[in-house]
């Protein structure tokens, strides 16, 4: 008894194959759709902003007057933020990763901390803003200065740095540390001389990616409270500040009042994206150049 009618099957075959080939193009289009949007975004930003970028814009002070506004203050603000974020996250992040991977025994405590870290990675950035506002700005009374903003951003990216550092530690083959222990090295000596150097490229890559995330973060800063107009340059971590993303935020909002502000926002975006692009390129180079083959 034949259930399958081969003629029928053949008839249907064509339409099935056409469907497959057609959808293949749809799927391809879906894949590059994001890239098309990205291109649209870049074109728009370049179109609006490129004309604004000149020496005076990059080095000048903020102004309400679009024609003489500059973003040096925001650039310096971002740099000062990073002066807080980088040491804090790198030290605490790598320290945490070392502790979790190499000192803490597998077990309940370890899994609690691990779960905690992955949960922290999913907490919206605005909630970190509130934490920063409550703890750093108010309870510790730093005010809305670089230090408060930097610490807030540090907490925000800490989980990312920790996870990346953990992964690079795990990627160091066990037999290297065994060789070191086998020679009478202590744990810290082994970590310092064998594990850290081998894991470092991965840690650096992960940290750079996390830091570029921090550079673009806006929401926590809006909560901490950044003045809409702050002309002087920040000169230290106890100064008030503005930062590139905050400037983009204010200029975008005010673009309905003063049209040229939209161009200033776009120009600032170009600068921000350029910084991120450079950072990411460095991360890629570090990863490719120092990747160890064991």
């Amino acid at each position: 008894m034949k259930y399958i009618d081969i003629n029928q099957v053949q008839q249907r075959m064509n339409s099935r194959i056409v469907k497959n080939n057609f959808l293949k193009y749809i799927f391809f289009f879906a894949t590059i759709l994001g890239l098309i949007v990205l291109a649209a975004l870049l074109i728009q930003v370049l179109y609006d902003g490129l004309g604004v970028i000149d020496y005076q814009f990059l080095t000048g002070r903020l102004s309400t007057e679009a024609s003489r506004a500059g973003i040096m203050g925001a650039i310096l603000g971002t740099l000062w933020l990073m002066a807080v974020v980088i040491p804090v996250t790198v030290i605490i992040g790598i320290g945490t990763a070392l502790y979790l991977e190499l000192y803490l025994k597998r077990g309940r405590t370890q899994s609690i901390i691990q779960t905690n870290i992955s949960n922290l990675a999913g907490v919206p950035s605005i909630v970190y803003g509130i934490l920063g506002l409550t703890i750093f700005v108010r309870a510790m009374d730093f005010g809305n200065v670089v230090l408060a903003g930097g610490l807030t951003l540090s907490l925000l990216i800490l989980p990312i740095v920790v996870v990346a550092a953990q992964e690079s530690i795990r990627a160091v083959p066990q037999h290297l540390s065994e060789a070191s222990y086998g020679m009478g090295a202590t744990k810290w000596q082994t970590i310092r001389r064998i594990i850290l150097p081998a894991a470092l490229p991965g840690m650096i890559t992960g940290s750079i990616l996390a830091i570029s995330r921090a550079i673009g973060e806006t929401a926590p800063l809006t909560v901490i409270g950044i003045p809409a107009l702050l002309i002087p340059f920040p000169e230290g971590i106890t100064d008030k500040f503005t930062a590139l993303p905050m400037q983009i935020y204010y200029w975008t909002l005010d673009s309905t009042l003063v049209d040229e502000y939209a161009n200033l926002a776009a120009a600032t975006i170009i600068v921000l994206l350029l910084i991120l692009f450079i950072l990411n390129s460095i991360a890629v180079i570090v990863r490719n150049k120092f990747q160890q083959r064991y």
Partner: protein
Amino acid sequence: MSIKETDQNNTPNPKNIVYDTQDLNLWYGETHALKNINLSINEKEITAIIGPSGCGKSTYLKTLNRMVEMVPSVRTSGDIKYNGKSILDRSFKVEDLRTRVGMVFQKPNPFPKSVYENVAYGPKIHGIRDKKTLDEIVEKSLKDAFIWDEVKDRLKENAYGLSGGQQQRLCIARTLAIEPDVILMDEPTSALDPISTLKVEELVQNLKENYSIIIVTHNMQQAARISDKTAFFLNGEVVEFDETETLFSNPSDKRTEDYITGRFG
């Protein structure tokens, strides 16, 4: 299971005993990996350990420098005396022990550093900072490991550029640099080609002048070729321990015979 080394212990023995294992038992969690091991290992001899896969050879070797502790679930009972001192005691400093007892692993595992830094690593961690002294140590160790001529012009190059056999001899040089008394070797030639293997074997035999060597090997011919004494492990027990010649020509246990004639394993 009684152990066949008793005869051995009773004969007059001109050599000092470097390791004395007494009723050693070891568990990985529930797995009873070593069962009532009793072994006395002599100074300046090559002791081979043979046996089928999973019989506990590596575990025993790693117990001798307490490397086995790196597995968190390990428990031991019994005792190992190194030069008369009990080493299983938690108060015994493992770093000290491991400085005296070097180890060479199955897969060559140089550090991802230069050839020079690989050899200087041990002396450095033990506090030797003087450049000239280090240079001398590196040269001497590389010479002792029969690899100086091959690498003397590439001391600054990464060790991963060396061939497998060179890497393994480099690892031996690295161990020699801290001048241990004992060298533990866990199948040091199993990842090497025949020519490299031969070179390493030759080196091992030369080293025995100054060092006590314990070598785990899958390769019975190798054990027969280079060792003075051989222990045959099976299922975590020592079935037989004797002069290598005796053990291979005239084994006293049926299972040893079956194993060395290739009937299982």
